[in-house]
């Protein structure tokens, strides 16, 4: 009994980490540019596919492929910002939502043309390995997700608080105009934030790939991650991670203990309840416009 609970806890945390990472991508972009990026899940899908292509088709090994795909998707994110998304800054939020929904559809279409609509599995150094810890069989794939998330969060935290560039990014997120006056190249910083956010999405995709399977609909995980970001309070980085973990845990436990059919819905029910009680999410803050 306890073993099952621990097992569920571990798997829930791992799934939650993925949601948290994708949600983190949403929040980074939203904090900086106030754009809501609905294509985040599809960037994750592209990351997973790129890594698969390098590992299996070109056979360059898991780790180089991992690094290469994250770099490529990061660059792609920066290019997206530079070429397309920058044009809608200052327009209503809705415009950006529709724009990124359109981009997401294009990415899916591109993926199905480039890599076909088959379902792939990504071979990794830790595939199908397990160790027994305290009577619970711990799959290394799940462990790798949790470890990867922890490391990534630590790196991002250090970057945002201890480097000059990171602090500049925070400044640009808080107040564009003031940051611009202080000599921060705001446009460049925004492109970098897009790159980081797309890179995080790619990492999430590669981490998820061995557990889930890679197909063009992988991006729909973005919807759940979106729920996670909103649950945590859009615009709060710890909120995004907490929201992701909450949704992951709810999903796994409701799948195990509630009647069939609740697994996919429970997260949304919780989301609706939280939004009714606290419309700004768990960690969000809401200000009232002065008239």
């Amino acid at each position: 009994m306890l073993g099952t609970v621990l097992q569920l806890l571990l798997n829930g945390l791992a799934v939650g980490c993925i949601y948290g990472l994708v949600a983190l991508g949403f929040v980074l972009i939203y904090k900086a540019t106030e754009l809501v990026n609905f294509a985040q899940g599809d960037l994750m899908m592209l990351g997973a596919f790129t890594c698969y292509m390098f590992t299996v088709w070109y056979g360059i090994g898991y780790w180089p492929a991992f690094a290469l795909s994250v770099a490529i998707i990061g660059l792609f994110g920066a290019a997206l910002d530079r070429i397309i998304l920058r044009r809608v800054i200052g327009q209503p939020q809705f415009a950006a939502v529709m724009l990124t929904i359109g981009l997401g559809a294009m990415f899916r279409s591109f993926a199905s043309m480039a890599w076909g609509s088959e379902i792939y599995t990504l071979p990794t150094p830790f595939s199908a390995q397990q160790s027994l810890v305290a009577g619970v069989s711990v799959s290394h794939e799940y462990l790798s997700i949790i470890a990867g998330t922890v490391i990534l969060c630590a790196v991002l935290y250090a970057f945002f608080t201890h480097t000059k560039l990171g602090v500049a990014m925070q400044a640009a997120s808080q107040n564009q105009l003031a940051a611009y006056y202080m000599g921060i190249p705001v446009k460049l910083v925004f492109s970098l934030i897009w790159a980081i956010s797309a890179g995080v999405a790619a990492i999430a995709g590669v981490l998820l790939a061995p557990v889930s399977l890679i197909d063009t609909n992988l991006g729909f995980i973005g919807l759940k991650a979106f729920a996670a970001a909103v649950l945590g309070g859009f615009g709060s980085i710890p909120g995004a991670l907490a929201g992701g973990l909450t949704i992951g845990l709810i999903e796994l436990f409701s799948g195990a203990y509630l009647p069939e059919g609740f697994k996919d819905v429970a997260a949304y029910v919780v989301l609706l309840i939280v939004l009714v009680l606290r419309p700004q999410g768990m960690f969000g803050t809401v200000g009232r416009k002065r008239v």
Partner: protein
Amino acid sequence: MRFIFKISYRQDLGLFRDRFQRDWYIALLLGLLALPVLLPDYRVDFSLMLIYGLCGVSLMVLAGYTGLVSLGHAAFLGIGAYAHVYFAQDMGLPWIVSIALAALVSAAAGGLVGLPALRMTGIYLTIATLAFALIVQEVFNRWESVTGGLKGKAVERPTIFGVSLQDDTSFYFLCLALLIAGLWLTRNVLRAPTGRAWVAIRDSEIAAQSMGVNLAVYKTLAFSYSAALMGVAGALFAHQVGFLAPDIFTVLLSIQFLLMVVVGGLGSLHGAIFGAIFVALVPVGISEARDVMPEWLGRVFSVFGQDAGSAVAAAVDGFVKHPGLEPGIFGLVLVLFILFEPQGFYGRWIKIKLYFSQFPLYKRATFKRQKSYMRSERLR
């Protein structure tokens, strides 16, 4: 340019600006009545276009006029469809009563979503409606006694007052009648105090509130009205597809409805219709192109030799037959519209009309959008 001198209040009350406009709409109506006779092969697609038109009007009221963006309208469509089929087939109610009840059920569901929506704004609301739609879809899956579950449910042709509408042409006219009724009603609601209150809420909630608009009442009303229209559209949609399954009413359909109002032009009923025409007829165009394009391009390229021609034909054939093409094209169109014509088809139509009516004095700057440095939507 034509200036209209208003000499009586009756002119303000009329549906049309002047008799020229009325004559144009009558001509359009005649064209629509003749359409199934002129192009009998596409009757089914035209019916779908009219149903989508109703969906577009529904979402336009909510997103375009009240400023509440919903990503869950496929759920209302589904509720309307299943409710109608349940009332008409399982309970054996008359068709008219059944469709009215379907609209009522859908409106009630809309009100239910509208209530929590009072406290949410912007992206939170969008996600809440999305969550609602996903939950509703799961309910369709599981509530087998009403919805037939995953096995689906066959839908009979409508029978109205004992007249069975078996063929596609009569169904087309039914859709046309209901779309015109919906448009007429919506146009009148929008210029009544209710509609003005909705527009005020869209433009500024605070300003609307201080002018005495009760946000709670009017937002819920907008949701209910929109959902009711969607319910009617859903009932027609059920007859159109002939077989209901829960996987019809997905998020992708909701996105398609949003695409409709954005591509058509937010904030105008014309836009809803333009969008519906686009969304319903582009797949038809693509499937036509699928048959014609490879051969045609192959013939063009065969001037470089027979091999080049057949190679191009094969490549194009593989490209246009790809199942991933259609959503990609929709995505591309959406992106291009948001970037280059945020006012959609209707905005472009207005510009073209003005260009000709002011020729040669048209100025591009007439429609120049004011650029703001950063319009924060974090504060409300």
